[in-house]
């Protein structure tokens, strides 16, 4: 666990740094392979940039709407750099809408674009796992297994590293898959979704911070299973479609 990286007088928040590196490397990789999916690297870059800006603005706006009184008494907080004043759900919705609008105006084909963005998503998942490893979040259940790590007062499953291994394996799998010439449009993205949902379904079982529902079932596993079911249905459909 390394939440802060001290470089001389500079204290860098390592989790944030990992997310940024994930964005940067992911976007670079996606730009490199975008022409293979009939999307220009510039269009992909602009799409991601538009989504990011809209996501940040939307996340702040969503937070302001939820807590208007907190901002009425301190309007300068509207432009505060505190990441805690962002609402992730609003940010995601705003980024999605902005990306859809931008894509429609640029006449980008949705499945080609999603396939082109897949390396970006896959690398970002590696960045997210590294961020959790740095902060000690997404920690595991207690274990007596020899590879358990001491964290938060107990020996625990190193779930952050399980998820990191899973994310790297998914990226490598997608790398192999993308070399195939008979790949249906949309299959790369759907395979990424299926593998990621499968990984969440499997690794969540070792997490020590799961939200439990209905007699101890892990909520994240149920969501992952539903996503997996929907994606497998989609994969079955495109596998039957002409290439």
């Amino acid at each position, binding site marked *: 666990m390394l*939440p802060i990286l001290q470089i001389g007088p500079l204290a860098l928040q390592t989790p944030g740094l990992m997310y940024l590196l994930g964005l940067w490397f992911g976007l670079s990789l996606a730009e490199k392979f975008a022409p293979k999916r009939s999307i220009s690297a510039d269009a992909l870059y602009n799409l991601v940039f538009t989504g990011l800006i809209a996501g940040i603005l939307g996340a702040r706006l969503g937070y302001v709407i939820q807590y208007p009184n907190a901002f009425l008494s301190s309007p300068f907080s509207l432009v505060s750099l505190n990441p805690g004043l962002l609402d992730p759900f609003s940010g995601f919705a705003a980024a999605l809408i902005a990306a859809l609008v931008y894509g429609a105006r640029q006449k980008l084909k949705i499945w080609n674009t999603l396939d082109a963005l897949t390396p970006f998503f896959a690398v970002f998942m590696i960045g997210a796992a590294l961020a959790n490893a740095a902060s000690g979040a997404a920690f595991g259940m207690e274990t007596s297994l020899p590879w358990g790590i001491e964290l938060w007062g107990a020996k625990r499953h190193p779930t952050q590293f399980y998820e990191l291994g899973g994310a790297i394996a998914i990226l490598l799998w997608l790398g192999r898959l993308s070399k195939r010439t008979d790949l249906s449009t949309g299959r790369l993205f759907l395979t990424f979704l299926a593998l990621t949902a499968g990984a969440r379904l499997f690794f969540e079982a070792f997490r*020590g911070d*799961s939200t439990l529902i209905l007699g101890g079932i892990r909520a994240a*596993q149920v969501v992952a*299973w539903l996503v997996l079911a929907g994606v497998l249905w989609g*994969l*079955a459909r495109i*596998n039957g479609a002409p290439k």
Partner: protein
Amino acid sequence: MRLNQPSRLSLHYSLILLAGLFWIWFSAVPQGTTTGGKIPAPQTGFLAPDFSLNTLQGERITLSDLRGKVVLLNIWASWCPPCRAEMPTMQKVWEEYRAQGVMVLAVNSTVQDTLTDTQNFVNDYGLTFPIPLDVSGEVTRLYQVSSLPTSFFIGADGVIREVVIGGPMSEALLRSRIEELLKEAR
């Protein structure tokens, strides 16, 4: 009987989903076994580690005695610019919310500060909330503080709801978090 390609695929996918359902059932755990706030650790979802310290005002303060109150535990030093920057906001919020059962504990990491500087700083800024003095560094270590300031928002049940590393925290952040915790405690 040999299945054609689409049927074979559908069978594989159905088996994957069935295996997934089995795994969900197999990995279910009794309610309260994930986090649950039973173990003291300086992380969201865990019980805030207990400590007793003498304050700058000369009183003894114990964290667990504050159970039932929403607590903002801030660990700081007088030489740290973001710590200095957020103190007036903390004072403002403390004045406004203390009557509703909110406690601000600004633990001075005295092990890496001086008592004179701390006292001067508190006087200059007119801070009235308790300033526990971590002379031995016990609390700084217990809360695994790697950067100053570090703040812990603790619910009325003594469980840490959020850790904020670095600063300064904006007024809106303090207000929204405290209001959320007060709403939860009601």
